[in-house]
Structures are given as structure tokens and as C-alpha cells.
């Protein structure tokens, strides 16, 4: 007889578990040494509380409790931590530093190797505005990956506000941005060009915006930008200037970076390793999220996929 687990879930046996445990403990050690307190929140919450996050990723697994309330498995840790910070630290002076090692749950598409249940190691820095808070978070990413001996990783850094700012600069009102933002989220630069032309932009202006969004590289790409665009990457430059040399060396600017999640407001990042085809982690600023829970505080955070980090280490040892 075979008793399978649902697709997108898996058992971890002792040999692999030892390695995962070693990685997890190192990561948590770096976080807590830097003053981030480990936090636990329930895996299952009221669905309408999770929906307040408006992440763009809806909770995928819902049940009714004995009173008819809808409960759901959390889709990430950022929303529950925003809830905790906004509601349980009333009267306490920010910033708050939290870290976690926790599972979250998402829907999967068939035959894509996606996980329904995945373990993330992350930090949330609440009440620390840009650029200092962002620089601290990027430094935490580098320190934690250095601690587990991962070489060759890089951190893509972009801004979720850049495209909107560029469009406003060309006189396109916010309510007409959606089709262009949608194509950027789909990573489709061909359709993005068409969407810009459909807004009435000239081919020259279309090329101007598309070229900026396809700009990737070191800090030199920020200074090579035309004057009008330079203003919109000022925030990224300020973050970069606050990084120590070794962390700065990991940064790849990606001016078209898009994370899909709805709560990001400024700098966003993805952690990349050449041995894997998908990012091993990511994060960004979410300066509006806490206000939805009743306390208006700027915030920034990141999460690393523990399985992905483990695969990257295995990939580099080969």
C-alpha cells in the first residue's frame, strides 16, 4: 500500500533534516545576535485578518470553525507580524525587530514543482524608515547567507515605485497605470512596450521607459540614467551608500524588479544564486501595511526559502 502526502508537501527524513536544522539554527543565530527577537504566530488565522494584508496572494486553504468563522492558513509571515506589531505593542516605542522560522501555505499549479507548505527564515524591521532600515535589512540578508557559507549569491535591488513615478513624469495619471504594471508583473517587456504605446506615449518615450526598466547592473547604471529618471532612483542610491563594501558588492540593481505581492511600497529585493533558476528569497519595504492594522509605521523585511537555500548550498558543493 502507498499512502501519499498531498502534492506540494513532503516528508523530511533524518539525513536531510540534520542539514536543514543546521542551516535554520545558523540563520536564527545571526538574526537574534543582531537584536531580532524570534516570534511565533498561529499558522491558522481569521481569513479577514489575513485578507487585510491585500498581498495579491489570497489564502488558499480555508475552513469553518465551530461558530462558522472562516479560518485560513497564512500565506506569508509578514501579514501576521504586521498584525502583532500593530496590536500588541501599543505605547511601545519603535523600532521593533522580529525574526521567524515558520511555514506558510500557498496554492500550487499542477506539475510545476511548487510547494503548498514551505519553510521561511525571515526578519521584519518595523518602525525603521528608508534608507537606514532598508540598508540594515540588506545587511542582514548578507550576514545570514555568509554565516551559512553560501558563496556567489547576489541581491537584486529595485523599487516598486519606479514605474509609477516614470509614468507620472510623462503625465500618465495613476488610474491608467494598471495595464503597464500588469505587463511588468508578467515580466513581458514586449507587451509592456505595446501597453505604453497604447497610453499614447511616443515610440521615443516608450523606448526611454522600457530601457530604464530593463536596466540591470552595478551602481554605475544609476549614474548613467537620464536626468528625469535619476530622481526616481534617488532612494536606491541612498540605500546603496549606506551599505558596507562587502554587502554593496552583492547588489545588482534591477530597475524593472517586480515582486508581485501587493503590499510593497519602495525598495524591493530578490536573493539570487547562479545554481538555481528561481530566487532563494526576497523582500522589500511595506510602509503602508501596518496602518491597515491601525498603527502607521514604516517597515521592511525579507524571507529566505530554507529549502531553496539548502539546494543552493548543495549546488555550490557539486
Amino acid at each position: 500500500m502507498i499512502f501519499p502526502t498531498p502534492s506540494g508537501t513532503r516528508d523530511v527524513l533524518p539525513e536531510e533534516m540534520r542539514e536543514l536544522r543546521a542551516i535554520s539554527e545558523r540563520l536564527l543565530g545571526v538574526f537574534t545576535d543582531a537584536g531580532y527577537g524570534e516570534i511565533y504566530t498561529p499558522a491558522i488565522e481569521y481569513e479577514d485578518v489575513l485578507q487585510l494584508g491585500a498581498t495579491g496572494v489570497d489564502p488558499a486553504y480555508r475552513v469553518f470553525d465551530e461558530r462558522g468563522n472562516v479560518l485560513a492558513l497564512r500565506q506569508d509571515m509578514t501579514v501576521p507580524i504586521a498584525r502583532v506589531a500593530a496590536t500588541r505593542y501599543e505605547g511601545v516605542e519603535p523600532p521593533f525587530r522580529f525574526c521567524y522560522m515558520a511555514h506558510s501555505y500557498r496554492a500550487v499549479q499542477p506539475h510545476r514543482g511548487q510547494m503548498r507548505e514551505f519553510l521561511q527564515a525571515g526578519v521584519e524591521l518595523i518602525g525603521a524608515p528608508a534608507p537606514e532600515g532598508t540598508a540594515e535589512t540588506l545587511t542582514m540578508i548578507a550576514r545570514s547567507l555568509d554565516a551559512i557559507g553560501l558563496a556567489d549569491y547576489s541581491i537584486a535591488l529595485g523599487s516598486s515605485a519606479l514605474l509609477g513615478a516614470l509614468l507620472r513624469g510623462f503625465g500618465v495619471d495613476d488610474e491608467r497605470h494598471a495595464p503597464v504594471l500588469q505587463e511588468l508583473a508578467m515580466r513581458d517587456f514586449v507587451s509592456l512596450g505595446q501597453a505604453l504605446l497604447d497610453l499614447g506615449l511616443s515610440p521615443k518615450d516608450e523606448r526611454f521607459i522600457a530601457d530604464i526598466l530593463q536596466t540591470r547592473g552595478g551602481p554605475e547604471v544609476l549614474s548613467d540614467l537620464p536626468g528625469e529618471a535619476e530622481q526616481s532612483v534617488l532612494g536606491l542610491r541612498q540605500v546603496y551608500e549606506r551599505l558596507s563594501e562587502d554587502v554593496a558588492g552583492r547588489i545588482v540593481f534591477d530597475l524593472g524588479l517586480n515582486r508581485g505581492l501587493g503590499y510593497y511600497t519602495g525598495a524591493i529585493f530578490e536573493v539570487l544564486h547562479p545554481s538555481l533558476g528561481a530566487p532563494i528569497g526576497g523582500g522589500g519595504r511595506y510602509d503602508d501595511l501596518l496602518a491597515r492594522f491601525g498603527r502607521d509605521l514604516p517597515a521592511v523585511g525579507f524571507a529566505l526559502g530554507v529549502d531553496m537555500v539548502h539546494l543552493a548550498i548543495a549546488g555550490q558543493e557539486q
Partner: protein
Amino acid sequence: MRKLRIAVPRGALMAETLDLLESVGIDTAEVRTNDRKLLFADLGIITMRPSDVPTYVESGAADIGITGKDVLAEQSSKSVYELLDLGLGACTMVVATIADDDSMEEALRHLGVVRVATKYPRTAAKHFEQTGRQVEIVEVKGSVELAPLTGLAEAIVDLTATGTTLRENGLVVREEIGRSTARLIANPVAYRTRVTEIDALLERLRAR
């Protein structure tokens, strides 16, 4: 670091794709003379079915790839960057039915639903949904033209370049869903970690 790896589609797009790569300085002679070989590690070329290109590129098994917009539209959940319209392999996604009677209209009028045979189930379902018609998709793997001739379905959704195959099987185009040309796609990690190589290739392709 290994050579930048390009996924090249076999089949109708292959010859044009190899010409294109040749024109930007990639040596493809060995690929042309070696029809059965799939992996050319020294050249950084892998050949495969066009519909597999997004899968290899998404996973990072190939860094970049070339495939039709029809394939990308059908597999739109694949996380790849679509960088450039290469203009090759122009064709059209169409709805076609038997020439002399419009069985699709008849089915919709009579039953309120039409059966559509296709190799592109998501594209077909989306088209009928967006045009407010109920549809039952029948997925087939080849020779879609057979379906309306044998009563498997009233209509087909398929890709056509010249319309010859449709005509020869007594079918006519009733609706155009969209145009398709070949696209250059890139893996999301390679796009950020192999910037110099990918941008150099992009620039040469744009300058053509």
C-alpha cells in the same frame, strides 16, 4: 561559469532561429548537420520542442530561449522574462470550422455551448470566456483539423501560417484570436546574474 545556454526550438521555427543566431555571431553549423543530437554543450545550444522551451528556461536548465508567442500565451504562468519580439515565424491563432455550414453558431444557438478541439486549451478557453460564450474544450495532441470532420468537436482553435492545411481539410477561419511571432525569453535569475552576456546578445539582435 558555464557558457550561456540557449534553448532553440525544433520544428518549423528551427531553421529561421539558427539563421538568426548565425547572423549575430553564434556558430550553428554543427547543429544543422546533426539532426538527432539535442545538446551542443560547446556551442551553448540545446534543441527541443517549442512548447518545452519555457519549461527549460524557467527552471534555469537553459538561460535564454526562443519560442513562439502562442506557446508563451498558453503557458503564461511560467516565470520567464519576455525580452524581444524576434519577428520570426509569424502566424495567427484562429477559430475555424467546416466551410459549408457553421456548426459552431448552430451549437451555440441550439445547445448554448460549443465543443472546441485544440492543442491550446488555455488560450481557447480564455478566448471563448472573454467573448461571452460557453465552451467545452477537447484537448488533442495533433492534427486538430480532424476533430470537426469526424464530429469530435464543432470548431477548432489552432495556429495557422498560410491557411493551407485548413483549406485542404475543408475548414475556414471564422475568428482571429491573435498574432504570434517568436520571442526571446530569459530565466529570471540568469537575467540578473548574466547581464553582460544577455544584454550583448539583445543589442546585436535589436541592431539586426
